């Protein structure tokens, strides 16, 4: 281990300082892991533990790496560089730790979901009259797209206009009140949004058993509007005031300035915000379970009868497994995989749109 530690040429220039050789960080990491692995191997061979301790090796090896790197660097390079190396190591470790669940989640979903996902009927059939394997999730995919699409159609105009009011017109108590309640709304538990939609429609139609897709859209809108307002407001605030003044000075009325200067300048950010808000609500299960219900059949009508959605499909397949339990679990994983893919496609689309609309710079 000490072979990785060499002091560079004798200090003649007063501006030079000791320096660890290139890649020393990586070497120290590997060495730390090796040391800890050797330790656990000895313990294992002595028969104290049952099998080789991989997790312990990685964890304690990484801790040893931080300490060792700091000490080496401190003695060779001085305290400033040592702190720098330590913090760099910690930040990198935090990043890797944050990535682990994500990679594990995507990997597990792909592995478990692929068999049912690749079934030819998965995208062409519903679950109607299916008791064992087979059938598909078309009813749930259509339901998710319809319910979320309508929720977007409701939320974007309301949210965007609210944001425009707040940035361009709002002064005084009304604007402060709106901002406050938008903040409160972002914290609403999704089940409350579902209960709100359920209570609203069961009272309106005097039908305690009411279930329909439109109600789901309303529930999702309650969750979506505050996100749209917040993100659009931030984006509109970023538009420089000079552009507004330039438009006013050309004799352009305020509303045209907003429509033709402010909105196009902020469009890329607004689109990204809308896509993020869609991703936020497309995976909601609880409100849809309450107001949109679940069904095994196709339903293209948002305004009558129960409507299946992907999250509810996943929940339902898992919660009420039939005789062939594995087929149900497979379909649940495939549904989850479909949902992840839809969100990913939406994000890609958002990137693309943002790139197309963003103000062009450069010569």
């Amino acid at each position, binding site marked *: 281990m000490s072979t990785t530690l060499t002091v560079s040429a004798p200090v003649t220039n007063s501006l030079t300082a000791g320096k660890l050789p290139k890649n020393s960080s990586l070497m120290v990491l590997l060495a730390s892991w090796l040391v800890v692995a050797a330790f656990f191997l000895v313990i294992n061979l002595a028969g104290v533990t049952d099998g080789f301790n991989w997790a312990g090796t990685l964890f304690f090896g990484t801790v040893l790496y931080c300490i060792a790197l700091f000490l080496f660097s401190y003695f060779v390079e001085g305290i400033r560089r040592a702190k720098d190396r330590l913090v760099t190591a910690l930040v990198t470790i935090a990043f890797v730790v944050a990535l682990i669940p994500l990679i594990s989640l995507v990997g597990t979903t792909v592995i478990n979901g692929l068999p049912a996902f690749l079934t030819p009927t998965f995208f062409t059939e519903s679950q109607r009259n299916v008791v064992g394997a087979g059938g598909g999730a078309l009813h749930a995919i259509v339901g998710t797209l319809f319910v979320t699409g309508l929720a977007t159609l409701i939320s974007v105009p309301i949210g965007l206009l609210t944001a425009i009011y707040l940035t361009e017109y709002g*002064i005084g108590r009304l604007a402060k009140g709106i901002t406050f309640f938008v903040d409160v709304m972002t914290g609403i538990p999704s089940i409350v949004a579902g209960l709100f939609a359920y209570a609203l429609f069961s009272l309106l139609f005097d039908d305690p058993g009411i279930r329909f897709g439109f109600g789901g859209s309303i529930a999702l809108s309650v969750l979506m509007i505050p996100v749209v307002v917040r993100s659009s407001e931030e984006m509109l605030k970023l538009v*420089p*005031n*000079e*552009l*507004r*003044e*330039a*438009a*006013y*000075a*050309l*004799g*352009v*009325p305020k509303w*045209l*300035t907003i429509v*033709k*200067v402010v909105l*196009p*300048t902020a469009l890329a950010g607004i689109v990204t915000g809308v896509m993020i808000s869609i991703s936020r609500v497309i995976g909601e299960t609880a409100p849809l379970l309450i107001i949109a219900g679940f069904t095994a059949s196709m339903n293209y009508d948002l305004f009558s009868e129960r409507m299946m959605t992907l999250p509810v499909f996943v929940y339902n397949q898992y919660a009420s497994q039939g005789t062939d339990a594995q087929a149900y679990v497979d379909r649940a994983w495939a549904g989850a995989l479909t949902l992840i893919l839809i969100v990913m496609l939406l994000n890609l689309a958002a990137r693309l749109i943002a790139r197309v609309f963003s*103000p*062009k*710079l*450069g*010569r």
Partner: protein
Amino acid sequence: MSKRIEVNDLDVYYSKFLAVEGVSLTIEPRTVTALIGPSGCGKSTFLRTLNRMHEVIPGARVDGEVLIDGNNLYGPGVDPVLVRRQVGMVFQRPNPFPTMSIGDNVLAGVKLNNRRMPKSEGDDLIEKSLRGANLWNEVKDRLDKPGSSLSGGQQQRLCIARAIAVQPDVILMDEPCSALDPISTLAIEDLIEEMKTDFTIVIVTHNMQQASRVSDRTAFFNIAGTGKPGKLIEYDDTTTIFSNPTVQATEDYVSGRFG
């Protein structure tokens, strides 16, 4: 195309704070008038009241009257949008619209107002305005490139082209050269000299040499101290202000003894 501006006893307030007090002056058509004075003395504020751009700042209001060819800007029922179509403005920092091409930036005043214009007429207006702003030769081959691709000085001339494309009577310039290098500054000063034949120009500047180079008349603003309102100290021919001012403060300022 150019008009006479008469300002009678104008006070400007930011909420309760009196920023500019008791300004009265007359600006003749087809002249260049420079507003000079130390920072914070209300030159820019006063300039903005000439096309009601101060109203963009919350709480700003005005007492007194500004007459453009006898029409009071602050009379009842006056639409600030119509005022600004006659009195154009160029700002301190070049601010072309980032979402528009160079050509569209010139036509912004037309396009943003939802007026339709045949393509040939639009092209003519672009060429005429860009020639007017001395920018045509530099950008004629890349009119469809974004306006932000130009250098700072070119962007500022683009903003001037944009302002003259709506054919105003008066053009206000708020320190148009303060963000530019000497060569671009020279280009814009030459431009002001040419534009004088068509427009009435009012320019705020911190650069006294610039005021003496480009303007026919000069107004000197000053404040008595922080928190006090800015006042018009002296208004006269530029040569008089710079060679033989009547007020001591003016002489101190133009000779560089303070400010």
